[in-house]
């Protein structure tokens, strides 16, 4: 766009980016401070990181917002969706940090870098979520991804972690490249980098353009990769399994929210007018993800790997909401994503809780007889598993109901039937965990560890899944307001 650069106007927009600026300063300060701390004082890094995340979340909530604001010369935009996604991301990362602390200490890898990299990855996710142009979108995505690659390799003595990190890095870079290529085609076709500019250009008659469809295909590949949708899912199981669990939970939660933000900015916002084109591509991705994710998960013996395939299948359901192309569908997809993240955080949290020195607790049989060892946490895990299976009265059910409603609303009845049939397949492997916990005898009688704080937060996390399942109105309304 040929508007001359106006420095004072640009600076006036910085006020909207206050949370991001705060988080940047906080992350840098924590990085510095961490150098001065002895190992005995290291826990302050974690505490300060959690505090700065909560502070950033408070700043986001405090931003008054009536309509969408585009600032910083079109690079940055703030709307209700961005606010909600940012707050959820920040709180999720805070919870992840709480879960990780014990685990890191027991592994003797309690280093400040974990928290600092985590904060920068969160910053990347926030920038991505608030991106107003393809440039910031890509910038945020890369900031997040680079931090995540480093976090995967963070346990430097672990060979499998290093292997995962390389795999993640190589494939992730390819995906970023593809995405960038798609973006350049879109820019070439529409002449704009700003999402609003692209949207108006596409509305203006480009929607049937073959070149544009070509660009969209590349974008879908990139988005599908970040989401982990089939057939771009190869990295997910290996990275989930190979990373330290405290990093897996980060990738499985916060980065999914960012991927959702990426998809929402690119597809409905910038390319809303050619919805018919990308919807068809997403149908394929969605059906394949639901099928492969649910079926292959049955064959897994490693819980982290199983949850990886479970993620893939859930992404298929999120895509159902997006591909419907209606406001109701976007709301349902957002609700699905948020509720999935809440449940996944809890499920990985359980693995972190059961893990101890020299023992990962990431095999299915490590959950054997949990009901005899700790009825309370067996109950919490059962809540999480039934929620993932989509059984009421847990939040996962309302998520599923929403996306099915979205596809039925656009007369894709067959897709709704396919979705529910694959969720029956999915129910089997979640039930298997419940079976192991309740019907089998324990093979290991060690008491459940974990600090009081972690146990409390984990219990609260699982009870939230139940509570929001009984009264989902508040979260549904939040998503509805975010995407009207």
């Amino acid at each position, binding site marked *: 766009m040929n508007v001359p650069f106006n420095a004072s106007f640009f600076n006036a927009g910085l006020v909207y980016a206050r949370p991001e600026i705060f988080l940047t300063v906080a992350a840098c300060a924590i990085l510095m401070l961490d150098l001065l701390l002895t190992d005995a004082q290291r826990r302050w890094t974690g505490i300060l990181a959690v505090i700065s995340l909560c502070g950033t979340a408070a700043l986001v909530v405090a931003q008054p917002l009536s309509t969408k604001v585009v600032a910083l010369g079109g690079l940055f935009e703030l709307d209700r969706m961005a606010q909600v996604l940012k707050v959820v991301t920040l709180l999720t990362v805070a919870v992840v940090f709480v879960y990780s602390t014990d685990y890191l200490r027991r592994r003797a890898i309690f280093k400040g870098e974990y928290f600092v990299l985590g904060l920068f990855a969160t910053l990347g996710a926030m920038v991505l979520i608030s991106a107003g142009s393809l440039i910031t979108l890509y910038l945020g995505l890369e900031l997040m991804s680079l931090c995540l690659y480093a976090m995967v390799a963070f346990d430097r003595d672990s060979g499998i972690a290093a292997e995962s990190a390389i795999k993640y890095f190589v494939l992730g870079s390819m995906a970023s490249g593809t995405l960038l290529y798609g973006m350049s085609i879109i820019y070439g076709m529409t002449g704009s980098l700003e999402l609003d500019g692209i949207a108006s250009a596409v509305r203006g008659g480009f929607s049937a353009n073959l070149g544009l469809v070509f660009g969209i295909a590349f974008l879908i590949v990139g988005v599908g990769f970040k989401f982990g949708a089939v057939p771009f899912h190869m990295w997910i199981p290996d990275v989930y399994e190979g990373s330290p669990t405290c990093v897996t939970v980060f990738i499985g939660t916060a980065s999914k929210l960012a991927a959702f933000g990426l998809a929402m900015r690119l597809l409905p916002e910038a390319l809303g007018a050619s919805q018919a084109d990308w919807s068809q591509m997403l149908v394929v991705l969605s059906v394949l993800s639901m099928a492969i994710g649910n079926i292959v998960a049955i064959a897994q013996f490693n819980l982290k790997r199983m949850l990886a395939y479970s993620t893939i299948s859930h992404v298929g359901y999120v895509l159902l909401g997006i591909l419907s192309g209606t406001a109701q569908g976007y709301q349902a997809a957002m609700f699905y994503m948020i509720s999935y993240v809440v449940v996944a955080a809890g499920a990985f949290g359980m693995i972190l809780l059961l893990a101890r020195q020299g023992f990962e607790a990431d095999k299915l049989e490590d959950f054997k007889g949990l009901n005899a060892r700790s009825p309370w946490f067996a109950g919490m895990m059962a809540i999480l598993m039934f929620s993932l299976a989509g*059984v*009421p009265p847990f939040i996962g*059910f*309302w998520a599923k*109901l929403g996306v*099915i409603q979205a596809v039925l609303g656009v007369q894709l009845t067959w897709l709704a039937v396919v979705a*529910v049939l694959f969720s029956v397949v999915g129910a089997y492997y979640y039930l298997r965990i*419940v079976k192991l916990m*309740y019907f089998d005898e324990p093979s290991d009688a060690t008491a459940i560890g974990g600090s009081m704080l972690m146990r409390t937060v984990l219990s609260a996390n699982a009870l939230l899944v139940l509570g929001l399942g009984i009264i989902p109105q508040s979260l*549904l309304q939040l998503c509805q307001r975010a995407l009207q």
Partner: protein
Amino acid sequence: MANLMFGGHLLSVLIWLPVIGGVAALGLGDRPTHAKWLALAVSALALLLSVPLWEMFQTGTAAMQFVERAPWISTIHAEYYIGVDGISMPLILLTTFTTVLIVIAGWSNVEKRVAQYFAAFLILEGLMTGVFASLDGALFYVFWEAMLIPMFIIIGIWGGPRRVYATIKFFLYTFVGSLLMLVALIYLYLKSGSYELAVFQRLPLSLPEQTLIFLAFFAAFAVKVPMFPVHTWLPDAHVEAPTGGSVVLAAIMLKMGGYGFLRFSLPIAPDASRTLDWLIIALSLIAVVYIGFVALAQTDMKKLIAYSSIAHMGFVTLGMFIGFQIVAHTGKTGGIEMGLDGAVVQMLSHGLVSGALFLCVGVMYDRVHSREISAYGGVINTMPKFAAFMVLFALANSGLPGTSGFVGEFLVILASFKANVWYAFLAGTTLVLGAAYTLWLVKRVIFGEVANAKVAALTDLNGREFLVLGVLAVAVLVVGVWPAPLLDVMRASTQHLAEQLLFSKVAP
């Protein structure tokens, strides 16, 4: 009175009191005796509080009673909307009544995780009451599915050797059907803008729409009933479940399938029900005749009763759909209600009788630890009191006049006669087959010489068991001898349903 006492929230209390009691019992994990007494107190209180439902029920109207309505999820227009009519109210009484008996019956024969056992049954009671009371599709679905969780746990923890296979099969079978129903419910919601069942029932729908919706509901309810050929989960679940689990399955859960046909399939898709009545009637008759023969061949007592349940539930579905054939063959509408009345009475009676039979098997199993028929023989010599009860329930199961089993079967056969003699003939074979497999069971287990040392060492019923079976025997006889009050309670509702059946929803 009692309803006023709770500010008009009697039904809510009946749903949530057991659920809260169950959660509290879970909290008493390491004090099993306390948990038991808590379970007994809560279930007895729930039974006591359900009596006013019967006492204060207005028999003259088909309108919903004890209605409570509050906003729940306004984003999708789902409401917390509950109430009962003449069909659901007796089923709720059956639920509260059965739960007390299960708690008493399980008093001393549960060995592991006692508190969780009783907690599961209490939570299940609340959720089942919720299913029968829901007048909102979303609320109904939540209770309907949530109910699977405690049942899954009950079969899986306290069940027999193949419990894991049986419980996962049970869960997945039911889950498939239910999810298709969910798709239908959401479709109806998108079409009508509300989840209220009454709105669904009024909504005009074209025949193809109705057919798909009918089939989706059919998937959910046929599995639950269970109808041939999707009945195969039931024998497994029954055999592996602990006694209490079998009783709940037979007495209440199977009834939910029948209830679903009455509340959803028939009134929401009457035209599709009419066009597809042949399907249900054929499957029902297969269940009655074929499954009757299968029952004859069983060597396991629980399996035999499970197959007998399938055959009896075939009667229920036959009674519900025979009305269409009456209209088609005679052009008269007189027999529809008779079939519906018969179906509902048969559901209640089967709840009492099959529950009682499973308890009888449980009594023997607790002593001998075998369910094989061949492990018994001549039980009457050592357990005369028990033998008397067992014979009574067996006779009720084969439909002897004077017992509850007779009333429902008689009404359904009579209605079938109005449609076609052959329907009645085939349905009537159940009287022969039912008598054959039940009485043969009794002959082999109860009568004859004492078969082995274990049977010789049997002790007769203790006070607790006598109480449970005695109460059930009284109920079976009362319904059998004097069914009039029960029929009065449901008359208005079945009449209303019969009118809905005849009303075409296809827009002209």
